[in-house]
């Protein structure tokens, strides 16, 4: 289980990427973090893995089964990567080393962390590629990343994260750039990994609905709503959550989702969603507390007692 207490990440120059985040990722459940670009989702995964650039100042607690990851030395932390924590990065062209074969890069954690022979590790890599339906897997394993399409690369990266067998899987936009059929393959795979704790970051609400047990909504570096997936999709509480759900095509694209960072005094000092909120009131110029209501957490004055 991962427990995150009052986590803040501030980059040099004062940019706050995560602001006092509290989040519990239950064991063997799928938690999906949703929110727009720049809300701090990917930074959270990087903070857990301790792979943020040196310019980032991290404070708070990141507890993995009671051990604070922020207090570990680099050597101890590296022992956890690939054994307890596995990472699926975003599938942009730069996530794979251009000079190493795809198969080698998928197999590398097995060779490094499980002392598997090259042959065994490559064979396992091909098996995982088959599970993700890449096609001509043996040939692709010997190919270089630039010969793969964006979708193929994304699935290869999923194989790279999943192959380690680490109990906690941190996935950053695993369905980015995939077509409907491929999204289904990835969704099926993640749903079948019932023995793992998955913390996933996604823009894709349909994917989130299919795989998530719990949802955490982030807005402007803060968590604004945390609840069970069913409750979130049937009755979102926070005005931002309502807005993103209403903006889904199946809900008739009812909301206008034009991106706007907090710009007014109230938006900066009070509720971050102040400038875009259709239900804002006078109280919203002050920072709202994280209210608890029927096991759900909402950062909004509407639900504060």
């Amino acid at each position, binding site marked *: 289980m991962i427990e995150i207490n009052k986590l803040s990440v501030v980059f040099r120059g004062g940019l706050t990427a995560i602001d006092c985040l509290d989040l519990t990722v239950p064991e063997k459940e799928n938690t999906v973090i949703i929110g727009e670009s720049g809300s701090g989702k990917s930074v959270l995964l*990087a903070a857990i*893995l301790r*792979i943020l*650039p040196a310019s980032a100042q991290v404070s708070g607690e990141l507890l993995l089964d009671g051990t604070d990851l922020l207090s570990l030395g680099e050597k101890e932390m*590296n*022992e*956890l*990567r*690939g*054994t307890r924590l*596995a*990472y699926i*990065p975003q599938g*942009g062209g*730069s*996530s*794979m*080393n*251009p*000079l*190493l074969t795809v198969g080698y890069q998928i197999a*590398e*954690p097995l060779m*490094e*962390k499980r002392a598997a022979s090259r042959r065994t590790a490559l064979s396992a890599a091909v098996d995982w590629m088959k599970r993700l339906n890449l096609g*001509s897997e043996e*040939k692709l394993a010997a190919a*270089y990343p*630039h*010969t793969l399409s964006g979708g193929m690369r994304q699935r290869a*990266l999923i194989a*790279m994260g999943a192959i*380690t067998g680490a109990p906690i899987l941190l996935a950053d936009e695993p369905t980015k750039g995939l077509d409907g059929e491929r999204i289904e393959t990835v969704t099926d795979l993640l749903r079948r990994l019932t023995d793992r704790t998955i913390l996933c970051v996604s823009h894709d609400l349909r994917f989130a609905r299919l795989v998530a047990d719990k949802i955490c909504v982030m807005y402007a570096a803060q968590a604004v709503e945390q609840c069970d997936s069913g409750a979130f999709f049937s009755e979102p509480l926070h005005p931002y959550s309502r807005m993103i759900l209403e903006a889904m095509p199946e809900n008739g694209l009812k909301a206008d989702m034009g991106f706007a960072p907090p710009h007014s005094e109230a938006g900066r000092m009070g509720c971050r969603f102040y400038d875009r909120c259709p239900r804002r009131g006078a109280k919203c110029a002050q920072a709202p507390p994280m209210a608890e209501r029927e096991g759900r957490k909402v950062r909004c004055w509407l639900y504060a007692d």
Partner: protein
Amino acid sequence: MENQEQRLGIKRLRLAAGYLLRAVALVFAIISINFILIHLMPGDPVMHILGDEQYFTLYNQFPEKLDEVRAQYSLDGSLLTQYLRYLEQVVTLQFGHSFIGGESVAKTVLFRMKWTALLALSAIAISALLGGALGVLAGYRKGGRLDRALTGLFLFLETIPANCLALILLVIFSYKLHWFPVGGMVSGRLSGWPRVLSVLHHMALPVLVLSLFRTSSNFLLMKSYVSQIRDEDYIVVAVAKGISRRHVLFRHVLKNALVPFVTTICLQVGHILSGSMLIEVVFSWKGMGTLIYDAVNNRDYPTVQMCFLLIAVCVVFFNFVSDMLCMRIDPRIQDGVQHG
């Protein structure tokens, strides 16, 4: 898939053939420019062959004798005739005899080349290993203590002119401390191991100066490549996979930094025959540098032409080697993919 592999193989072969063809065309262009430049130099080469006094005597009293001398040294006829004659010489590898001493140009140049190569190759090997290794360490831990100390030191070295440092070292270690010989390449009447040791002793200071300069530029280049690559997404992903720091450095960072570094080193090797001219002059090293210097001063066309030709061929050849090595390391180059 097999057809695709065949097509890729043909594509790579075509790419290599293209590089080779370009190299040959370049050598031909260099041969031509080489000839034109040398013949554009002011002054009559016959004057240097005969000496001022004899030249002017013949010029005033027996001009037909001057034409005979010109014919004897293949300096007669139009520029085009001389050019065609020169091309024939290059193709048949007959480089003629020196205008000054009369000895075979090929023999002299090859002898001098051996000594220059000894000096330059040692310096390139030392500086590539030292500069490369230190650059990797400093670049990987950019801003660390090692980086700050070495960057300061090597930037300081980069700012001192090579011949100036050579003279300072010569004064300290040769004149004052008598640790190394003042000049020359080997002590006389020696053979076997004593001769080898004598050569090593003589080359120590010039190699030190050349190595220091090349090490500093190699260090700064490698540091820059590595510090850029270590921030790439795939390096962050490799760290996130739990790969050990050593493997991240060697398998992921170094492999990617090798492509530009190999190009740099190959270009240095390409300049092996001409790159240490000043140092050769300071340390009285009888290599290509001093040979070219004397040949240019004496309008010794055959010697200058062969020296310049060899330098050009060397540069083009090692540029070709660099292309082939980069193609071997980076599959994107093999496949003709554009990348940043």
